[in-house]
């Protein structure tokens, strides 16, 4: 349970309750019966947490989406994919650890899986470049999608990135072209394609692997055209106004579902995915499985046609 001990700023009331419970737990050894009180406080803590998370806004959700203990690609992969064989390299220039992938089975179904990995320790964050891909990552994604298509395997992608890496080498090696090709491939593959935006869906780096038949978002994940900080620094020349930008850009799963940008929302455990990672991972696995079974009923050409129609219709329904 130690991982739930990192509290976000807006979770302060819960932190206070939990610390009271801790204190009482220490008293327990001293022959005073506090168990009734502890039970009461625990109930109160859960109740408050439930209420708090029901009304959190876009900026709070941004913090939850970026929570260091939120399940990452590797957690989903370990929890959901059996017979996993990691695949590496774009066959052009190099291997990109920010975007991982491979072959395996999800609930028995053979799949190609890929996703951004942010890393969960300082050392790993550096290896994975904080989940920000270079062109090689997107070129590897294209390669994996081509592989899936050739062997008629469904593709499952996990999106969790602040964005594509804005580096010198990335630009020299054609970051824009790599993203464009990945979008292009994802839209035209005959394979069934399910995307889960599990944390941050940051801009072009996210859509590069999210042009799926079914795009699902976790309840407290975010998906946006630019980070709230980036938007604030452009609009107000003040990155500190990220909270206002987060609100203005409508980045929550709930808003995006109402605009028809995404297809479904996966509910998180009380207090967010980081409070019960195992539960979150199994919810995600069940939902992906259901989507794959539904998509498997459709002929490949029909899937491609429906996918393209779906994206072409985004925004058109909003015309009054």
């Amino acid at each position, binding site marked *: 349970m130690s991982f739930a001990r990192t509290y976000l700023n807006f979770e302060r009331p819960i932190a206070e309750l939990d610390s009271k419970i801790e204190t009482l737990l220490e008293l327990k050894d001293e022959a005073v019966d506090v168990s009734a009180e502890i039970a009461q406080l625990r109930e109160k803590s859960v109740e408050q947490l439930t209420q708090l998370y029901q009304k959190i806004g876009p900026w709070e959700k941004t913090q939850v989406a970026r929570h260091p203990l939120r399940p990452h690609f590797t957690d989903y992969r370990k929890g959901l994919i059996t017979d996993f064989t990691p695949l590496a390299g774009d066959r052009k220039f190099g291997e990109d650890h920010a975007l991982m992938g491979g072959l395996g089975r999800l609930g028995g179904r053979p799949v190609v899986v890929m996703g951004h990995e942010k890393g969960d320790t300082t050392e790993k964050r550096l290896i994975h470049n904080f989940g920000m891909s270079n062109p090689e990552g997107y070129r590897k994604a294209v390669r994996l999608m081509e592989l899936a298509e050739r062997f008629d395997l469904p593709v499952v992608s996990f999106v969790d990135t602040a964005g594509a890496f804005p580096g010198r080498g990335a630009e020299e090696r054609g970051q824009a072209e790599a993203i464009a090709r990945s979008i292009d491939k994802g839209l035209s593959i005959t394979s069934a394609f399910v995307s889960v935006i599990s944390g941050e869906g940051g801009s072009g780096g996210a*859509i590069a692997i999210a042009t799926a038949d079914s795009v699902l978002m976790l309840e407290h994940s975010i998906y946006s055209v630019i980070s709230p900080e980036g938007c604030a620094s452009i609009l107000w020349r003040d990155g500190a106004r990220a909270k206002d930008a987060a609100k203005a850009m409508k980045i929550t799963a709930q808003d995006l579902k109402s605009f028809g940008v995404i297809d479904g929302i996966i509910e998180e455990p009380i207090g967010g995915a980081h409070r019960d990672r195992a539960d979150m991972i199994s919810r995600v696995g069940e939902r992906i499985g259901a989507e794959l079974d539904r998509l498997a009923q459709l002929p490949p050409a029909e899937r491609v046609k429906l996918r393209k129609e779906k994206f072409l219709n985004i925004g058109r329904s909003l015309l009054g």
Partner: protein
Amino acid sequence: MNWLSKLAPPGVKNIFTKKDTPDNLWIKCPKSGEMVFSADLPSMLHVTPAGHHMRIGPELRFQYTFDDGEYTAVPIPAVALDPLKFRDDKKYTDRLKAARTKTGDDDVMSIGVGNIHGNQTVVLVQNFAFMGGSLGMAAGEGFITAANYAVDHNLPLIIFTAAGGARMQEGALSLMQMPRTTIAVQALRDASLPYIVVLCDPTTGGVTASYAMLGDIHLAEPGALICFAGPRVIEETIREKLPQGFQRAEFLEEKGMVDRVVARKDMRETLANILSVLMKTQTAA
């Protein structure tokens, strides 16, 4: 602004601001620093003597591209207005109104159909002067309309791109234009029709990372900034100055992302040659 305007109180400042000459009578070439007489620019296709290609809007672009400057405009369907109810210091709808008044256009995209050395072609122009050419729902619909028109009439499509990136005021709906325009590119590809991209200054962000990098042929105007992440963002990330010419058209040509950098005066002829080969036009010779 100079040192004087910083020092002088607001009232005094006006005395030193010359208002007796009309605005932009002379234009300073950003490349050489020399002063260029505005009235001379049209005859030079808005390219300074030092070779700086100035940003131009759809009207001039069509005029410089089509035979005798003649073309038919294709209307772009309306899109939802401000679904996010977005406002920063100003309402998004007010910014849109201001841009419409300034340019006389509805949004960033304009479509013209005409001949280039006799090759009938759909030409799409993205106007940087309209809210930085930003890619929003209207731009996406413009691109799709142009591609569909080309497919329906069996014509090639040429786009002159120019954009600071996505239109933030439309949030993720703006991001969705990347897949939407890509689907339109695929329609051209499925119909075996040429799709030629001319990258103009500047082409950045989500525009570069979608339809601007998916052409059969990529041409670029000299000196155009073409990138995914802008130089300022990169310099902040790597904490060092980028070399001269980084992310410019010539740099992209060197890195294999652009087929040719073509001067504005040669663009029409270059496009005509490419079109006639790709469309297998019968020539007299």
